[in-house]
């Protein structure tokens, strides 16, 4: 589903964020992206999301070279990718329902689709009874679930989560991981960048470890750090 071939990204200030990365992620996989801050995790995500264009190398999404996409094709790529952030990025003046509906509105979906689809995903993330509330009235874990509902309401093929548990306590983090596992069972590919060692170690999923812009380790059923 995602193929990177010799991807290098050098920012205009000279920083080399990605250094000759090649990797393949299959449809339906659940991948942890680990590594210290500044290792290039975020840049890797941005390259897949077409927020950044690689300096060298190619990124293929479903077989299409997205580095060659024209500006007007990018939105349609992004509708196939759901994004979840550490800081949630919800709109404070919109209710839970409106925040999720917004993701459908911007794609020009009809009112009928919105009215049926939004309650469906709010139910899926367990927030059906809080749809009229505003983000400020919710706990961190609830806000993150709204963010996930917004990310999956378009039925994306890929869900990318950038440190989704970074602002959450351990119990809430586990609830969130269960939710992501459920979503993954429905054939949604998930890439999750994280620093949460216990979660990675106990989930036994594929782990791609990065350091200094390179893939230092890539193993199935991996752990957060290689055993010494």
């Amino acid at each position, binding site marked *: 589903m995602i193929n990177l071939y010799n991807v290098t990204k050098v920012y205009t200030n000279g920083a080399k964020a990605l250094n000759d990365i090649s990797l393949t992620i299959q*449809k339906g996989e659940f991948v942890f992206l680990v590594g210290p801050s500044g290792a290039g995790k975020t840049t890797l995500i941005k390259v897949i999301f077409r927020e950044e264009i690689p300096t060298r190398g190619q990124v293929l999404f*479903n077989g299409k070279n997205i580095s060659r996409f024209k*500006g*007007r094709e*990018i*939105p*349609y*790529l*992004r*509708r*196939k990718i759901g*994004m979840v952030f550490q800081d949630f*990025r919800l*709109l404070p003046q919109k209710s839970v329902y409106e925040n999720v509906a*917004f*993701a459908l*509105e*911007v*794609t*020009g*979906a*009809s*009112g009928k*689709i*919105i009215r049926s689809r939004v309650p469906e995903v709010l139910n899926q993330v367990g927030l059906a009874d809080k749809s009229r509330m505003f983000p400020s009235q919710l706990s961190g874990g609830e806000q993150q679930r709204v963010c996930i509902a*917004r990310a999956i309401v*378009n*039925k*994306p*093929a890929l869900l990318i989560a950038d440190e989704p548990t970074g602002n959450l306590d351990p119990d809430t983090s586990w609830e969130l991981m269960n939710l992501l596992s459920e979503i993954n069972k429905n*054939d949604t590919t998930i890439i999750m960048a994280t620093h949460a060692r216990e979660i990675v170690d106990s989930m036994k999923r594929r782990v791609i470890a990065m350091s200094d812009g390179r893939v230092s380790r890539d193993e199935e059923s991996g752990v957060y750090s290689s055993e010494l």
Partner: protein
Amino acid sequence: MAGSAATRKAGYTAVSFNTLFYYWREAVNSIFRNSWLSIASVGTVAVSLLILGFFTLAAVNVREFTQGIESGLEIRVYLKDGAARENVNKMQAQIAGVPGVSLVDFVSREQALEEMKENFGGRGDILEGLDKDNPLPDSFRVRAENADNIPDLAGQLMALNGVEQVIYGHGLVEKLVSVTRWARLTGAIILCFLCLAAIFLISTTIRMSVFARRKEIGIMVLLGATNWFVRFPYLLEGMMLGLVGAALAGTVVYAGYMSLTSHITQSLPFIHPVTDRQVLLQVMGGMLGIGLLIGALGSSFSIRKYLKT
């Protein structure tokens, strides 16, 4: 991947009713959210267009007035003595055929004398003796389509066979033409500056409302909104502000001009301002159009930098 196929299809469908409603709601909300700025920009558009409107009407009147003078300008073509009457018809056709000539009248020497007598009024008897030995030549009275061409045309007519002399308001014509040209040029420059000022003010207003919602715009882009989807509510907002300003200005200009002209025609009956409804409606329509354009331009300038992908 059934899900992505469905979303892709939804993405390419024509603009839904829901989307149109979204645009409208966003634009109206934004106008009321930044109500003071909205009022300020409507005000500036109104003031700019107000000046522009009165200026245009003044220009229309000046043009009408100068055209009135210009169309009164004529070229007199005096013929050599003894031109045969049958030649006269030929010459009249010849002159009428010269490009730029709008009207040719033949004035016979007898007619010319009659006119001269009339000009002398009651003292026509002074010219009494001339009836027998009329010294006046036959002539043509020529009108030009365009006053600019008169000096040129005079030269061409002079070159015709059988022409003794060509006379026109030498100097006066040139002066008049240059004055009206100058007035038109300065008018156009002032209009341009006023439009630029209005565009600048609208773009400031829209920039504030874009800035207040930059987070929202960022999220929209992440969620896969097309640039047009992001841009359109702001475009609509700008156009609404421009239109409201233009409508205000139009109303004031119309009412003001109407009362002004009625005063003028009462107190200064020899001046005839343009009160043609057709012309007034054209000016009002132009103002509304410029208001819309100013709004659209202003907002597209300010949204552009937030949509760099």
